[in-house]
């Protein structure tokens, strides 16, 4: 592997890892703060990707178009969806056992998958990227790298920074962190914990949907994409330590590198490398890299 190829693979690994982080952080946020294990989290990623495909023409027509307009509408819709789902389903799950959470969210997956099939069918669709992001940048003398992949990384970094700022520096972040530690105390201090949970859940949904939307031009949209990303996110969360955003970031990058280089160096093991990584981490640190709490 020459240097340019190596660099390209590194960039791919970082991009994939950051994208995984975006999805996994929502999963771990929801679990860490509300104690709900949400199998349907991958569906939100899928919904995001399909929104990128289905919303673009409508946004084009009514709002005069634009890639960012589509993203903004998609994020707004997914926040609303998260708010609604928390109210309808998830608010019943906080006091329940993990087993029941698993089952109900499994039921939700079936519903989302069938609704997707009813609304947009089961075909694979490509999603166009905006023209000004579709070029390449030179890398070394002969290689080039697609701008859009750099854009994905940039969006993920921006969101990660924003999330860190909100959690560490704002009153809302303080309440969220406090709510994760001691629910009763936060309630006693006069904070509307229901509303807080609803907001956190909506943010988690929006993070996954945003990841799906920006990934769509690269990965295209296809049935079962939610299930695939969910399982990889589980691997990320297991390695990083559940409930830890920092752990999710480190683990997502680790998984990004192992997956990307695994595919290049050992094509025959392609699908397995990530699971072997998980097995190794379980031997070394069964509680995860940064277990919260």
């Amino acid at each position, binding site marked *: 592997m020459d240097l340019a190829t190596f660099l390209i693979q590194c960039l791919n690994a970082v991009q994939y890892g950051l994208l995984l982080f975006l999805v996994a952080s929502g999963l771990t946020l929801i*679990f860490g703060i509300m104690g709900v*294990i949400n199998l349907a989290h991958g569906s939100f990623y899928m919904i995001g990707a399909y929104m990128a495909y289905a919303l673009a023409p409508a946004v084009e027509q009514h709002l005069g178009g634009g890639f960012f307009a589509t993203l903004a509408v998609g994020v707004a819709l997914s926040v609303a969806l998260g708010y609604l789902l928390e109210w309808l*389903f998830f608010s*019943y799950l906080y006091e*329940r056992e*993990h*087993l*029941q959470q*698993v*089952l*109900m969210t*499994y*039921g*939700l*997956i*079936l*519903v989302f*998958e*069938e*609704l997707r*099939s*009813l609304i947009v069918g089961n075909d694979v669709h490509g999603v166009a990227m905006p023209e000004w992001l579709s070029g390449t940048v030179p890398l070394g003398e002969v290689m080039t790298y697609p701008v859009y992949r750099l854009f994905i990384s940039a969006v993920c970094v921006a969101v990660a920074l924003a999330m860190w700022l909100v959690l560490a520096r704002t009153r809302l972040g303080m309440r969220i962190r406090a709510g994760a530690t001691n629910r009763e105390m936060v309630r006693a201090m006069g904070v509307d914990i229901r509303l807080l949970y609803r907001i956190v859940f909506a943010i988690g949904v929006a993070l996954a949907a945003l990841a799906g939307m920006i990934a769509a031009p690269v990965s295209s949209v296809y049935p079962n994409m939610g*299930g695939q990303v969910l*399982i990889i996110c*589980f*691997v990320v*969360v*297991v390695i990083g330590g*559940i409930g830890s955003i920092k752990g999710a970031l480190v683990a997502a990058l680790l998984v990004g590198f192992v997956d990307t280089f695994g595919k290049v160096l050992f094509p025959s093991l*392609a*699908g*397995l490398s990530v*699971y072997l990584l*998980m*097995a190794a981490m*379980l*031997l070394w640190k*069964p*509680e*995860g890299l940064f277990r919260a709490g």
Partner: protein
Amino acid sequence: MNTKLAPVALAFVAFGLFPLAGGAYEIDLATKIMILAIFALSLELLVGQTGLVCFGHAAFFGIGAYTVTLLTPMSGPVSLWLALPASVGAAALYALPVGALSLRTKGVYFIMITLAFAQMAYFVFHDTPLGGGSDGIYLDFRPDPAIGGWQPFDLSEGHTLYYAVLASLVLVFGLLAVMLRSRFGRALAGIRVNEQRMRAAGFPTYGYKLAAFVLSAALAGLAGFLYALKDGYVNPELLSWHHSGAVLLMIILGGLGHLRGAMLGALAFTLLQEAFQSQALVGDFAQHWQLPLGLTIIAFVALMPKGLIGLALRRGRQ
């Protein structure tokens, strides 16, 4: 004890007499129900009796199914006495490292890890030439039970497979019922209730849990083996996490903590699925059967967390 066992015994007798009344479709459905009942019983041992929520049980089922299919040559049947232990053994063998690693963790971690390892097995059959990809492979000949020159029965004939499945179900139920009353079963129940205390009492709980995990996987492998024989066809979907979710649902649907519940759940789930998939009942909407199934699951979890058995027990007490 008698009031508990009587309905089970009645059900077994009913299944035994069923071929006298049912047509080919009904017998195939009943066979499927009994196979899934074995599968559900195997998971009940883990989830209901030991308190370990495994979300990757389909992997062991699928490995059992694939093993017999891969062992069968193109030209003729494989010996039953090779294929059966190999299928059950392969599932148990995969469960050993998976269980050893997963059991280092607890709770949500355990759920996610068993799911991830099952997905890994899914990829092995889906992505490598070994499993024939997403198309799956056909099992053209059911295993041959001949010993030397003696042919005790023929699985490809009449209702032999049906009765072999019924016998397996009765055996598995009997084995689990006896085992749960043994010292081993009591220890598992103790771990479910309070593992800390069991460890303090001197029980090597990790070893007990691993033994339960491997045994449970072996029984799931048996169910997969029988499933391959019934359908004559295997594909990666047998290992998919939808299948793992389905079997988990069966034991909850029936009622967690009861062997009867697992079997009742397999029956209820299969009939429910059959109804949602039935063209005659729901017309063209049958192709979207997962939608009503998903909604049923959600409603069920919300309204009846104790399962069908819970409903029956409550009515019984009133």
